[in-house]
């Protein structure tokens, strides 16, 4: 059976970090959705960071895939942040009329971790 490549998901305390470094194909998207849901269940993760700094171009398909993954995680009760989006890619997405609203974003991984912490604290304060 040949080795099938997949996108690594890294656990950091109670957060999961996914750094997309390759072009997302249909197969990889399906596999990633699967892997993330399984890992969330297995690790009981509270936060997810999707790092897109390694993606060269975000077209509508890629954007939707990233958004779907974020929504799936949120439905599973996991706070999600998208980090590392290139500002020019962000401008392009807006100009195309694509909608990534509902997603928290951060410029880099450090900010993303900060945001996850803040989200946890504000939820604690409310509860």
């Amino acid at each position, binding site marked *: 059976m040949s080795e099938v490549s997949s996108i690594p998901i890294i656990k950091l305390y109670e957060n999961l970090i996914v750094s997309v470094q390759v*072009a997302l194909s249909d197969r990889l998207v399906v596999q990633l959705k699967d892997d993330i849901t399984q890992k969330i269940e297995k690790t009981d993760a509270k936060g997810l960071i999707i790092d897109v700094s390694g993606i060269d*171009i975000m077209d509508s398909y890629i954007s939707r895939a990233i958004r779907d993954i974020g929504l799936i995680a949120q439905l599973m009760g996991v706070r999600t942040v998208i980090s590392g989006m290139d500002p*020019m890619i962000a401008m392009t997405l807006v100009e195309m009329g*694509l909608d990534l609203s509902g997603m928290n974003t951060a410029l880099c991984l450090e900010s993303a971790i900060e945001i996850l912490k803040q989200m946890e604290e504000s939820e604690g304060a409310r509860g």
Partner: protein
Amino acid sequence: MTRIEREIMDIMSSHVSAIMARSILTLSIQWSGVDIHNLSPRDARYLTKELRKGLQLYLRDPEGRRACITRLTGYLEDNAHEGKKPPKNTIVKIIEESDIVRARVTGRDLCAHMGFSQADQIKVATAVSELARNIVQYANEGEIALTVVETKPVHIQIVARDVGPGIENLDIVLDGHYESKSGMGIGLRGTRNLMDEFDVQTKRGAGTLISVRKYLKKEW
């Protein structure tokens, strides 16, 4: 490894072992001091000289050495880029997902050569990605032609062509009020927003031809 390094290694590997080729190449690049990502014609000559020296040490057979050096010299002459214009017309066949990346990288490279701003390069690459993906998802195969047009107004022209099923209800799809299950409309509308000119010709059962242009804007 850059494309040029790979191709130089290919040429040498038919005369020396791959490991030897790799060593000769690495040392030649170091000793000639050239930037392999950015070879001017003069750099190409320096590099060729160092490669020749390396081959003289490790490739004993004089015939083979001569042949190898000739091929390397020719190859490097052709591929040193300074002052070289990008090809006027490039056609990328679109059959599988990996062709989407190829097409958009080609588009971006052409735009970079033409002097487009980073922002516009990304817009063109994104539009090409959308068009290529639509071909892969709905038409099975097609092609994307990228043309550099130097008569004013200078622009890049991209034509995505396929003999797929055609787009039904094009007007509604482009209108934006129709929520397609598949998202083809989103890609098309997005492309239209990013480009300066946008035209779709489609016939049910016969195929689709989408033609877009992006004008080169002067940096302020």
